[in-house]
Each structure stands twice: as C-alpha cells, then as structure tokens.
C-alpha cells in the first residue's frame, strides 16, 4: 500500500517534471523573448543587450531552465515581462477567482450529476432517462462558448435576471463577484454535470448486470436494498477518477468561458499573456494548471485505492 502510494507520487512528480520541460521548450519556440516583449519597439542594440544581460537571457537554455525550474519549486515564479511585477502576486488573485468558479460548479455539479446519473440508469430507456441522456449529450458536445452565449442571450439579454458580463476587477473581495459569477458557474456546471452523469449512468447499468446484483435479486432482496447496499457503492467508485479528470479538464476548458464572460481568472490571463508574449506569465500559468491536473488525478487515485479494498493489496492496475 505504502509502496504503491510512493510509486504513484513518484510518477506524478515525473509527469510534472516532463511538463515543465515541454512548457519550457514550447515557450522557447515562440519568436522573441521577454526582453523584446518588454521593450517593444525599442528592442534593439544596447538596450536589448542590457535587458538580456539583466535578466540573464544570454545564458544557455539549459542553465535558464535549471534556474526557472529551481525557483518554481521554491514558489518563485519570476517576474512578468509587462510591468515587471512578481508573477506569484499577479497569479494569486486570478487563481482564487478561477477556483471560485470551479468550486461553485463542483458544488452544484457533482451532486447533481450523481443524482441524475443514478436516476437515468435505474429507469433506463424510460422517459426520464431519455430526457436526461439527450440533454447531457447536448450539454457536453456543444462548445462552451455557444452554451455561454445562449445563456447570456436568454437570462441576461431577454429576461434580465443576471448580468451577462463580469466587470469586477481581479483583486476585489469574493463577495463582489455575485451575482456576476452565477452565469459562468452555470455554464461550467452544465458541461461538467453532463460528463460525470454519463459515466455514472453507464457504471450503474454495468453494476446492475453484475453477477452479485443478479444473485441478490434471485435471493429476493428488496430492490431498493440492492440499489443502496450493492449497486451504488460499487458503481460510484470508478466515477471518482472521472470526476478528477473532469475537474482537471475544467481548469483548462474554463479559458473559453472566462473569455466569454470577461471573467478575471487564470484562463483569461493565460490567453492575454500569450497574445502579449508575456512569456514568464504563460510559463507560470501552464505549470500551475498542469500541476493541478496531476495533483487532482493523484488524489483521485489515492481516494480510489482507499475506498477499494482490492486495489489496496493487489498489484497496481495497469496505467
């Protein structure tokens, strides 16, 4: 058990390390560097030389990578090219705002998805299942910017219930984001719920067909007792991983939603930093999002392991 945990941790660390290399190489590929972005038109001759000297951009890529990765491990993400501010400060509020969005969506979405998924599976091919499943397909396949725009049109433009655009500044207290944050949360919840409920549904259906569920039925165990004692605990276990993947995806997919709503979160900051060639910021955000992805998946694996006695002892599943 402990060895397995350590192995998982090790693999997670390796993934983050590989990601850091990919990010570094990817950003190296971009034309221009921090100094050309910072100096803009004056980026030539002595000025450019001095700036590169100051920031140590004249050193070899390997040294710079080691320096960047080393500081990142210590929590120092460097300074942004535009305005020369500490990135950890800039990112802090943005990360908080994105987390507000994500946790709002999770709080509503996960219970809703579990409930709807189980209901759809238990009444499989009945009206409720057809409605839920069809809506889920619509919600998860339609691009986020389409559902976001549609919701703005209906709830903001036509009905006028909630604001369709966020005007609060990034460092405002969380409370000021209400009610502006409601629509972005709704869009995120919609997509997330659809993904999770589909897995829950198929997982419950699979479990219903299992030998032990059939056995319990044949023994004459009451239906609802089978559902609560046998089906749900076994069926919901595999969904932990899908929830994790969805959360991780959510942090990336949130980029589009944040742009549509003008929401001052991490995703929009990433897009802005790419457009502005603010490479240190791009690198930092990419690293944060990738780390969150790895950590969330790791947490899901550990949770699954703890919840499933078989996985605690048997050799680890094939990755």
């Amino acid at each position, binding site marked *: 058990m402990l060895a397995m945990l350590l192995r998982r941790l090790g693999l997670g660390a390796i993934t983050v390390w590989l990601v850091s290399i990919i990010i570094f190489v990817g950003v190296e590929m971009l034309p221009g560097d921090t100094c050309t972005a910072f100096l803009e038109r004056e980026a030539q001759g002595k000025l450019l030389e001095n700036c590169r000297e100051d920031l140590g951009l004249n050193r070899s890529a390997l040294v710079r990578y080691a320096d960047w990765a080393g500081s990142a491990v210590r929590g120092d993400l460097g300074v942004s090219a535009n305005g020369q501010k500490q990135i950890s400060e800039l990112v802090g509020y943005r990360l908080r705002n994105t987390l507000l969005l994500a946790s709002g969506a999770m709080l509503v979405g996960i219970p809703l998805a579990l409930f709807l998924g189980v209901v759809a599976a238990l009444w499989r091919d009945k009206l409720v299942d057809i409605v839920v499943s069809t809506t889920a397909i619509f919600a998860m396949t339609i691009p986020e910017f389409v559902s976001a725009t*549609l919701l703005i049109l209906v709830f903001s433009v036509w009905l006028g219930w909630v604001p369709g655009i966020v005007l609060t500044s990034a460092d405002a207290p969380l409370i000021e984001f209400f009610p502006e944050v409601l629509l972005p949360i709704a869009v995120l919840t919609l997509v997330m719920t659809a993904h999770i409920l589909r897995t829950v549904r198929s997982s419950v259906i699979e479990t219903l067909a299992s030998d032990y569920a059939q056995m319990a039925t044949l023994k004459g165990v009451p239906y609802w007792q089978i559902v609560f004692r046998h089906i749900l605990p076994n069926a919901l276990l595999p969904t932990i991983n899908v929830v994790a993947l969805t959360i991780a995806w959510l942090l990336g*997919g949130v980029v589009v939603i944040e742009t549509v709503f003008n929401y001052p979160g991490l995703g929009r900051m*990433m897009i802005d930093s790419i457009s502005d060639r603010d490479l240190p910021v791009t690198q930092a*955000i990419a690293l944060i999002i990738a780390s969150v992805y790895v950590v969330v998946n790791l947490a899901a694996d550990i949770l699954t392991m703890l919840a499933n006695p078989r996985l605690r002892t048997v050799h680890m599943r094939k990755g």
Partner: protein
Amino acid sequence: MTVTTSYRRPGRLARFGTLISDIVARPSGAIGLTLVLGHLLLAFIGPFIVPYDFTEMNSGLMLSKPSAAHWLGADHLGRDTLTRTLLGGREAILVTGIATPLAVLWGGLVGIFFGLAGGRVDEVLMRVVDAFLSLPWILKMLVLIVTFGTGIEVLIPTLAFFYGIPVIRIARAATHDVVARDFVQAARARGHSRGTIIRRELLPNVRDALLVEGAMRWSWMLLAFSSLSFLGFGVSPPTPDWGLMIADARGFMSFSPLGVLAPMVGLSSLIIGINLTADALAKALGIDRAQKAPV
C-alpha cells in the same frame, strides 16, 4: 481438390453496408448520420445554392430583421446571415476533415507500435503522453498558432499532432487487449510471422476502436477549431465561420439575436450529429465508449 465452405466472408462493400444499416437501425444513429451527411453535402454545394455573396456588404441592411429577401436578416456589416451561416462550416469541415484522419493515423501507428514493443520504452512514452495530456488543449494549440500563424497550413498539422496524442493511448490499450486474446495465440501457434499476425489479426481488431475514436476526435477537433475561431485565433475574416460569426454578432445580440442563433444551430447540429453517429457506431461495433473522459 475442391474446397467447399458453407460460409463466405462478406466482401468489403457488404460489410460496410451492414455497418451503415446497423448505425441507422437506431433512431439516434439515423438522425446523427443524416445531420453529418447533410452538413457534408452542404459544404460541397453551399457556394452554388446561397442567395448572396458572403462578402457583399449593404449598409442599408445593417442588423436588419428577417425579411422576404433576407430570411435571417443581416449582420452588423449588412451581410446576409443565411448565406454566411450556410457557408460557415466549410472551413471547419475542411480543416478537421483532413486533420482527423491524420491524427488517427499517426496516433494509431505509434500506439500499436509501442503497445507491441512494451517494456521500458513503452513506459517512458506513456509518461510523455501523460505530460502532454495534462496541459490544457488551448494552451498547446495557442503556442503553436501564435508562433506559426493562423492559416490552414498551420491549423491542420497542429490539430493533427495534438489530437493524435490521446489516440496513442487508445491504440495502445486496444493492442494490449487484442494481444492477450486466444486468436492471436492461435496464430502464433500456427507459426504465422509477426508481420502476418499484425496485419491479419491485430489491425482489423484495433481498427474498430480507432474508428470510434476517430469519430470522437473529429467532434473534439471541431469544438477546438470553432473555439479558436471564436477567440480570434482561427480563420481570418471575411471567411464565414460559425465560431467567428458568433464572436462578431455577440455584441449585437440584443438587436439581432438571429445573428448568434443561426451559426449556433449550424455548429451545434454538426457536432451533435457527429456524436450521435459515433455513439451508434460504437454500439454497432460493440465498443463501449461511455467511460470516455473529456480529455
């Protein structure tokens, strides 16, 4: 010597026919396939049936309401919305239609190869795949697009490259799955060469998984493509494209909601069509794709 068999393996065409009839046997599959084929047809004949030129601007028509001459009204530049909506999928279908087979091809080959090779190389590759998958798609795409530009010649290889990476996983898993089966052991016992086993036993079985995966990749790719257009990193104006049209018309939503609704219907119907078809295809081929994660 005469060989008599009571069973002849149906030809390629016959098997394709069976697959199609299996897909349309389900209402959802029939609807899906109709939507997809309709969109493909529209992409081909679109330029011949649209009522106006998609670049034609008419200042008198700016944000006009639907009329007999302009069924869906006009956009903020006075261009006919119906014309632009009908043509709005061509670029997306062209780009993703080329990029999807490329992605499935390279991802599939790499996945099968490493699935067969196994061992340390395989382990290392999977870590690299994981690392790539842990980065948000939009970041990966934008870095390449910002570097090389937003033309078709950049978008196709970029989409093909990044959407091939998850295919590696699927192909590798399917390969592992097949290699352990009895019929592969039987082929080995019969003394077939490695090449023959791969061609005759492995590929036909992995192909099904890749076919379904390809259909799914196509829909994710369309989603990515239109999102990029929406964000201003995709096709460049005045090319009509649903994502771009929605981005443009968004500001005028309260005056002319049809400006956003029309391209929305176009894009959504294609993506839903692909998904319904992919679902039906998976069921027809006996593959469960419900466990798919949204990566």
